[in-house]
């Protein structure tokens, strides 16, 4: 069945209540068979309950439109890592505690492990893979600051910290060290590299202000 037809069929099955509609993009869908949710039902084989969310979503990830088959109970971190191959977003705890999965939704840091992909339709998702300028290859000031300061040790936390820093600088490009510490307090670094991470944040702020 054609994708668009499927979606229309689904829409018809939805009751008259006003439910959020997935943005329907024309074109081929991303692989609807991810690593994560292959076992159960393939797309649309499962009869949807009245009014339930449709599974085919179009997400804006790092400036690109990506079509994905997303199960209702799938978290954004899982979609990114297992459906879209964006493994830069890490799962440190999967419980909104460590911050390794931090991504930006419309520029604001969120824990990717603790939000359903279905909850963020229409919002722009930025992951660590999206920081570098895709055309020029130029690093984001935050990334440059990491290189300048030799930031991070094991760096499993690094993508999350970088995303939080980007979000922080968007809101406050001239933080004090203390403000930066507060802004970054939702990310854990088990290597205890907080000193260098704060140096990096301050350096990044400098670079951002220079741009």
């Amino acid at each position, binding site marked *: 069945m054609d994708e668009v037809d499927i979606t229309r069929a689904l829409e018809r099955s939805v009751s008259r*209540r006003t*439910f959020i509609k997935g943005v329907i993009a024309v074109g081929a869908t991303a692989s609807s068979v991810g690593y994560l949710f292959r076992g159960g039902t393939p797309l649309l084989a499962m009869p949807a309950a009245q009014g339930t969310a449709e599974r085919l979503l179009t997400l804006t990830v790092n400036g690109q439109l990506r079509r994905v088959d997303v199960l*209702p*109970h799938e978290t954004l971190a899982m979609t990114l890592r297992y459906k879209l191959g964006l493994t830069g977003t890490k799962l440190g705890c*999967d419980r909104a505690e460590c*911050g390794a999965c931090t991504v930006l939704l419309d520029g604001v840091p*969120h824990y990717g492990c603790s939000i359903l992909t279905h909850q963020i339709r229409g919002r722009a998702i930025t992951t660590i893979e999206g920081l570098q300028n895709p055309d020029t290859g130029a690093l984001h000031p935050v990334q440059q600051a990491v290189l300048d300061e030799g930031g991070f040790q094991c760096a499993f936390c690094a993508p999350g910290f970088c995303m939080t820093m980007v979000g922080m600088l968007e809101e406050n490009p001239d933080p004090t060290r203390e403000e930066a510490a507060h802004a*970054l307090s939702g990310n854990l670094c088990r290597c205890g590299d907080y000193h260098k991470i704060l140096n990096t944040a301050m350096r990044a702020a400098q670079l951002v202000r220079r741009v």
Partner: protein
Amino acid sequence: MAIIRDMIPAFDLFQPASVEDALALLAEHGEDAWVLAGGLDTFDWLKDRIKRPKAVVDLSGVEELTGIRDTGAGIEIGAMTPLSRVVGDPRVRADFALLREAAEHVATPQIRNQGTLGGNLSQDTRCWYYRSGWPCYRAGGNTCYASAPKAMNREHCILGRSRCVAVSPSDTAPALIALGARMVVRRAGSESIHEAQDFFIGPATDIQRMTVLRAGDLLTAVRIPEDWAGARHYYEKVRDRGSWDFALVSVAAAFRMDGDTIGDARIAVNGVAPFPVRLDSVERMVVGHAPDEALATEAGELAVAGARPLRHNDYKVPLMRNLVRRAIRSVA
């Protein structure tokens, strides 16, 4: 009960775009429905596979539940308003700084970006026995594991216990009580308004709920009247870590001064009982007096009168006493 605590089991996801539709869905699915706001409490339960709702009603698309507006007689904050928006709101900042401070003490920046005011108020307790899926009273079983003679209960209650000894985890709750807020609760076909302190219920009333909300109910908004706008206030949360930690004890207080004496006061404490505790008797005692050290001491002692600590949380008695003292001292 180790076995497995991973991967959310399947559910049907409903994403209403209006409160009416949300209420209709909740009415339709009754006990099988689960309200999803910011999800920070929800996903723990689901990933741990302990609570298994059939239908999840996601409120993220209900725009009318988000936002802060001036009602003329105060402000109304939509239940789905993210905590960071509450923190950043100029009106809250100017007139209800107590709420701003409390909201700022919630967990982490990311959680404040995602977590909602309604969710912070309605979240379930963090008792680790209950959260481990043990069949305690709160989970429908016939015992409390946390108050057993050798149980680990440093974070449990010293007041208000009734079979269950868990504590309310909300940081914003005591602030809203101190500000005299009212909670707007709707269900299909009706609306009710609750004083903040009555919104939270103890195990004596219903051991399986933390708030008045029953299946089918939706907390839609919090109204803060002008009464305490611009009042002097005190907020303090004592926790083990500087972020991502619940209060061991927290205090929120609002004061109106009458010259050198306290003209009016509202004081609430959390982390000490299964519900945020409003200290009416302390309020009555301090009004009309100068907030000197003697009054602060007396207030602290009165606040903890009747406290019954468990094996590992005796420290909460002096901690609560001292925080109430500090609150009184703050207006000296």
